[in-house]
């Protein structure tokens, strides 16, 4: 129990400093030099803003009847009314919040759990690695929407069920990436050095392994947010939103699809909102991925 001093380490010729890693903030800043990242960020910011301040701007409540069902735009309703005579614009302004909040929480939970499992698996280098990753394989044997559907079938379409199901299906995909990125790092001298110094395992995972895997994790995270939004909106479209009558972009598309020919705006408006949002997250993800790949290539050439 006699940790080596810095001088001992310097004498032994081992560098205790981690290799130059791509810090998350610098990766983000660099990726903003790409036009696509900026475009994506603008789209996502607009949609998030719409979801946050939308309810304050809405001319009517989300469930207030304002006219005849499926009436075309004009008069009191700027985008017309839906199948129950509610204002499409108001429901559009109210309908993004729950999708966004659930997608962000689910992805964040999946990231935390997945990264922890992936790093632990890579670091353990023993049977725990196999057990953890085979467990992840079992969860990955279900397509994401399938597991969410089974969970909803059993417990019900509560927000926490949907969030948990999506977090649970996000985690193994993150774990794979984290493990893959951490494996080469685990073999490096600075990890062995920390072990020799008696640094606790959780601290090695959190302060030495994690920062070195953030690049690939961020690429994966942006991809996962896109999918989470898609799955949550798809569940609502399948009639499985937490509030079946509430304003929700997915629910709106389902409800108004029958009246598409008469009053297309009830479907087109939420479609545009979802499409712009996922395109935005997709563009940001591609920007980060390109930047990370560019940094890797530059390093390989050194």
């Amino acid at each position, binding site marked *: 129990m006699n940790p080596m001093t810095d001088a001992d380490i310097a004498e032994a010729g081992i560098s205790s400093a981690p290799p130059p890693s791509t810090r998350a903030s610098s990766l983000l800043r660099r990726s903003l030099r790409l036009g696509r990242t900026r475009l994506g960020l603008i789209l996502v910011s607009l949609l998030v803003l719409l979801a946050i301040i939308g309810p304050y701007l809405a001319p009517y409540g989300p469930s207030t009847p304002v006219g005849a069902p499926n009436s075309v735009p004009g008069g009191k309703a700027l985008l017309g009314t839906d199948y129950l005579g509610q204002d499409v614009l108001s429901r559009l302004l109210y309908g993004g919040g729950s999708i966004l909040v659930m997608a962000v929480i689910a992805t964040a939970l999946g990231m935390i759990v997945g990264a922890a499992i992936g790093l632990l698996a890579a670091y353990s280098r023993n049977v725990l690695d196999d057990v953890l990753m085979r467990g992840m394989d079992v969860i990955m044997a279900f397509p994401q929407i399938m597991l969410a559907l089974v969970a909803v079938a059993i417990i019900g379409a509560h927000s926490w069920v949907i969030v948990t199901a999506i977090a649970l299906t996000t985690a193994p995909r993150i774990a794979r990436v984290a493990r893959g990125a951490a494996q080469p790092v685990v073999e490096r001298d600075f990890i062995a050095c920390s072990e020799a110094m008696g640094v606790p395992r959780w601290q090695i995972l959190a302060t030495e392994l994690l920062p070195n895997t953030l690049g690939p994790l961020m690429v994966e995270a942006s991809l996962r947010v896109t999918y989470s939004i898609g799955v949550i909106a798809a569940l609502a479209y399948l*009639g499985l939103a937490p509030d079946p009558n509430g304003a929700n972009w997915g629910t709106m598309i389902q409800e108004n699809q029958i009246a*598409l020919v008469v009053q297309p705006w009830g479907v087109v408006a939420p479609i545009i909102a979802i499409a712009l949002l996922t395109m935005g997250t997709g563009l940001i993800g591609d920007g980060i991925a390109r930047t990370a790949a560019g940094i890797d290539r530059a390093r390989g050439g050194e």
Partner: protein
Amino acid sequence: MNRLRSGGVPRFIVRRLLLGLLVLILVSFVVFAATQALPGDPARAILGRSATPASLAALRKVLHLDRPVIDQYLTWIAGLLHGNLGSSLAAQEPVTKLLAPKLVNSAVLVLISAVVSIPLSIAIGSWAALKREKIFDTVSSNLLLVLAALPEFVVGVVLVILFATTVFNVLPGVSQIPPGSRPWNDLSGLVLPVLTLVVAVAPYVARIMRASMIEVLESDYVEMARLKGLPERTVLVRHALPNALGPVFQVIALNLAYLAGGIVVVEYVFNYTGIGSALQDAVINHDLPVVQALAMLIAALYVALNLLADVGTIVVTPRLRTRL
């Protein structure tokens, strides 16, 4: 992978098979645990508060709820292996009888989508690689990026808006297949669901194909083939393409597996009579035997395709075999 050095390809396949089996057994635990996880009495949860004691007892017997958990699991698994998936609670029909025709319909949908999307995306990816940084590459890369980000149901509904209602009213927006009929009896009904699945899958395959092709085109052996004076056509078709396909194989199999989940939403968009809309129906109706059967079926398909992806990649990439 270096663990496998002594065994070679057959041993690798056996290992992956056993692993796939293990995953399936674990999946069956999870799916079975689903019935156990129902809060309170599953029979009451399924039938609701107004159920009579007689119907509750009958359902408990059907679900074998009156026996120990291990027994219940073994009965269920044995039934599964004998093709007996229990009875649908909503339709009062054996699950196999209910799902068999729908399974055929879904398989047709997935197969046609695969047959259309795979060559198409390989062609797009290769062409983009050959015309790198030119206009086709830039346009297709950005278009594919945007399409890849869209959820399938959004793509499906947009196609309905474009081709079945307002803009060009040329195709049916609903593809319901009447009982006894087959999907190929009405081909026009297949167009939009297939197109939706193609749009869902093609971007991934095309992007990998492009990256893989670019790498191959820059390789020494392609340069060698060109220096030998081979016609460009031969260089591309005989030398570049087969080598570029290796990494793409894995992505294709993964995307086919993904289609197994993707059909749930796409079938619902078009009211297509398949296992996907059956699953949505079963979830809405709390029809657990059907949900269990479909979960096992889709998981098995998923595991099988992943296995195929791994084995296929090894077979089409001789380079990897030497590393085993």
